[in-house]
């Protein structure tokens, strides 16, 4: 549940495989920046990143810096993980948060007890450098 997991132990949980159109997102995460794609034609901010706007099909897209602030829309305390790498791990929180920009993201709520997570709770982004190549944006209870 720590923010960064830079132990010597190999990280064996699922990792994202980057696509050409999503690479800038992951590169920003590595710099500990949360960015979101926005369509320059219609102004739509969307998630997950795609090669074109799912609203108007425009390919004229830009990356905007996200506020990093969000609210928990729903969550589930997982007592079983999807791969053997989760065996023996304590329960963890998988959540969908709605960011201030209005998009939904799947994430983990960290740095708080799973039983304290509530729908509507204010959360803020925190970056977890799970491997030298991959940083996963996660969320923790908002400090303010």
């Amino acid at each position, binding site marked *: 549940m720590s923010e960064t997991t830079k132990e010597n132990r190999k990280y064996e949980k699922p990792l994202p495989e980057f696509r050409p159109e999503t690479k800038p997102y992951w590169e920003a995460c590595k710099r500990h920046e949360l960015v979101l794609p926005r369509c320059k034609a219609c102004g739509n901010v969307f*998630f997950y990143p795609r090669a074109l706007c799912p609203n108007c099909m425009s390919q004229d897209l830009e990356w905007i810096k996200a506020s990093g602030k969000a609210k928990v829309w729903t969550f589930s305390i997982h007592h079983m993980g999807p791969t053997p790498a989760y065996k023996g791990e304590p329960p963890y929180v998988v*959540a969908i948060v709605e960011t201030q920009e209005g998009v939904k993201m799947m994430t983990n709520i960290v740095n708080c007890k799973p039983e304290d997570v509530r729908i509507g709770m204010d959360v803020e982004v925190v970056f977890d450098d799970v491997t030298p190549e991959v940083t*996963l944006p996660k969320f923790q209870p908002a400090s303010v």
Partner: protein
Amino acid sequence: MASSIPRVEEAREILKKHKIVIAGIGETEQGKIPNKSSFQFLSEASKLAIEDAGIKKEDVDGLVTAFSLVEQTFMHCTTFADYFGLRPRYFSSVAIGGATAVWMVAEAAMAIASGQADVVLCVRGDNTLSGISSSGMVALIREMCHTEFEFPYGLTTPGGYALAAQRYLYEYNARQEHLAAVAVTMRKHAALKPNAMHKEPLTIEDVINSRVIAAPLHKYDCSIISDGGAAFIVTTEEKAKSLGIQKPLVYLWGMGEGYSHQYLTSLKNLDQIYNAIETSGQRAFKTAGVGPKDIDVAFLYDCFTITVLLELEGLGFVPKGEAGPFALEGRLEIGKDLPVNTHGGLLSQAHLGAMHHVVEATAQLRGEAGPRQVKDAEVALVHGNGGIVSAHSTIILGKQPLS
């Protein structure tokens, strides 16, 4: 009757004209059967359905299959045609997760109505419980969510449904018992179904006290995994008569699909799911010219308890937020307001998508459901759901031709 659903009157005329029927059903043993392959289950189920209809294999000129989670093939329908020794004029594989079985009926109907085939064998079978490898299971879970933006957070399949369930409990002040009541009813029904995998009695407390898988879903909120096969034969009334089929025919009255999302990340709100269920149901209802009150027995996709509540509400059987108390009052049981999944469903009978839902709906309308028979069952609804309440399909079946 004017309707805002595009071309629904035309669909109704097509079904009235062709009188599409289910004329044969087959179900193998279900459960843990370690000595049979995926293609053996497909073959055995097909043979049973052909024998049930009392036709010859050569009479089958269309084939609709689904997919296998164990023996994954690039071209499932033709791989099975080869194995089974069938030379179909029409062949297709439907792969929309839990919405598949219901849509196989529609796929067959469309093939028949457009002159591509006359007698379509629809079959699914798999040795999912005994045959799937642990890497195959991981691949399956990964398939259910976005590999890049969801899977790295450890989302599981029950977890995806748990996310929907948590939001449902929050928005409608529903309780754990409301979910549990669905599992309890399915178990009661399974006790009456000879090939059901789980028949031992289950109480609300048993469900709530069972192991948490992904809160708020417990072990008994989750469907079972099983080995087995099931099949049905779709044809027309005219063809069935010319082939001398003696079994009571069950008529297709309506069908529809509804799309919400693929990945939960793309879900805007709970209403988006309700709208997809409603879209699917309304097209089927309007085509059939009936409404929720006309349904004598319903078969709702029950991969997790939450889906039954969402479907009861989305299809218009009860208002939003009221399915939980409805289930808790036992009103989904045989002999009550709306008997649901009289065979025990995915929660207690077996898991082969909605194949058994279609087979049992047919058995009910034939009057062949034995101790599970819903008295005077004339009209049945079957609803399938694929993904994480993402893709929906509905059919309505009648004991009489559509008039």
